[in-house]
């Protein structure tokens, strides 16, 4: 049997925080080139899962494989865009310096960046359309601009997999749309995994959605699911409560008659 190796594979993954299970028996597979949205309620384990995939946290049980190897050993480059909350935006650092942080591992013997590294930074910045911001101080940028810079930082290492944690949490609607357009474009050359709350964006761009709430359930986002979710979002009374929505996504989405007719 000639099965291609998955970009990401989680096998019976469990993780405990101080004795309490955060994730239980999570198994899924992400093919190369996929666009996966990780969704689910707050505290459901989305960020924990991402950290397990990155190799920042080690699972209590089970395994994570990136292209068939554990994250700590995999030589495949993973680009990571963390949640905005951890940054010190007032730190005196320019856009160019931030992007170069994606290349910290590559530096020369004296911990300096080479000419090549500088070119890599520039081309990463070009891919997110932010070259003219090179010498601006990071704190002067808007939320959306800063997010692009952080994506460029992740791209500088020329990753095969890009992982983002709530990349649009602090951005206005049009900014969110632009970020997802950018991710769709990047998805043509790399696998994208994004943790997001933003259902309308997720449904518009992702090909699979992994619903995580201690356990995980993979949905394929095809025309049927899109229809189903759109219908549920608009709701019969024009109101669809978030809790119901999460509950529905926690189950397999079945195709209704109305959906098939559509």
């Amino acid at each position, binding site marked *: 049997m000639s099965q291609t190796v998955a970009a990401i594979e989680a096998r019976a993954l469990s993780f405990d925080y101080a004795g309490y299970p955060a994730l239980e028996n999570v198994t899924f597979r992400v093919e190369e080139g996929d666009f996966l949205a990780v969704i689910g309620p707050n505290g459901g384990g989305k960020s924990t899962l991402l950290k397990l995939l990155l190799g920042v946290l080690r699972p209590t049980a089970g395994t994570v494989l990136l292209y068939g190897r554990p994250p700590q050993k995999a030589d495949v480059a993973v680009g990571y865009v963390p949640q905005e909350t*951890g940054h*010190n935006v*007032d730190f005196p650092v320019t856009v160019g310096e931030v992007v170069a*942080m994606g290349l*910290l591992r590559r530096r020369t013997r004296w911990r300096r960046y080479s000419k090549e590294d500088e070119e890599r930074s520039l081309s990463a910045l070009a891919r997110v359309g932010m070259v003219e911001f090179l010498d601006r101080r990071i704190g002067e940028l808007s939320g959306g601009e800063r997010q692009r810079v952080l994506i460029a930082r992740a791209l500088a290492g020329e990753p095969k997999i890009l992982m983002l944690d709530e990349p649009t949490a602090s951005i206005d609607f049009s900014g969110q749309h632009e970020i997802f357009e950018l991710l769709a474009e990047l998805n043509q050359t790399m696998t994208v995994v994004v943790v997001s709350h933003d259902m309308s964006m997720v449904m518009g761009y992702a090909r699979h959605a992994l619903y995580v709430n201690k356990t995980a359930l993979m949905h394929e986002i095809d025309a049927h699911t899109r229809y189903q979710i759109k219908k549920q979002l608009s709701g019969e009374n024009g109101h669809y409560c978030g809790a119901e929505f999460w509950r529905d996504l926690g189950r397999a989405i079945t195709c209704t008659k109305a959906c098939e007719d559509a």
Partner: protein
Amino acid sequence: MLEALSLSFFQNALIAGVLIAVAIGIIGPLSVANRMTFMSGGIAHATYGGVGLAIFMGWPVLGGAATAALLAALLIAWISYRNLHRTDTVIGMVWAVGMAVGVILTDLTQGYHPDLMSFLFGSILAVNGTDLWMMTAFDLILTALIWYFYYDLLALGFDPVFAALQGVKTRWLHLLLLVLTALTVVLAMRLVGLIMVIALLTMPAFTAERYVKTLAGMMGISFLLSLIYLLFGLFLAYRFDLSAGACVIMAAAFGTILLFFYEKERELK
């Protein structure tokens, strides 16, 4: 006024001023940009515990001060790693308890100690040739370390989680910063005093940040401003026979406020 330049103690004080400005110019911006000012203040004040202990035991004061400063740095690093509830309160305790220990031990020591005030408020008489060599050596080591770890420090300051993912040893680097801050405090102690040093760490960095975008730029401007404030303060202290630390801080406060309003004016135009 100029006859002061021919006095060897004053020459020593001026050279020390230049050497301290180098250390302050580097550590000040790092402390401000990393929001470590309160930690630095804790280290500076706790250092007095070591001064008191050295006087009580009859040990060399500089050794006692350095030991206490390093212990305070380790303790504060540990507190911040543990991310304890109310980290600020705990650092505040280190700050005050260190001082209290120093005060009690000097109270218990027999006899009169004229230099005690100079450790707290600084003195232009206190610097000798050995101090100058130690300051020079420290400046060289400090500059080399900061040059070597410069990009690691940027990553640590901006986004420690990402820095750690990129292989930066963030905890060790943070500890190194606190240790270098502790040693800067000890070296600046003779001239500026333990109580005043914290203001000298913050004021030049605060002004510098308004003029430049990078950490290195901030260090350059902070060095120049600290140098001006230190030298000006030393001349004031000599001329009017006042405490050196207090004069330096008044010069720094005056300069900081002046530059702040000058910049405000310029922005309005």
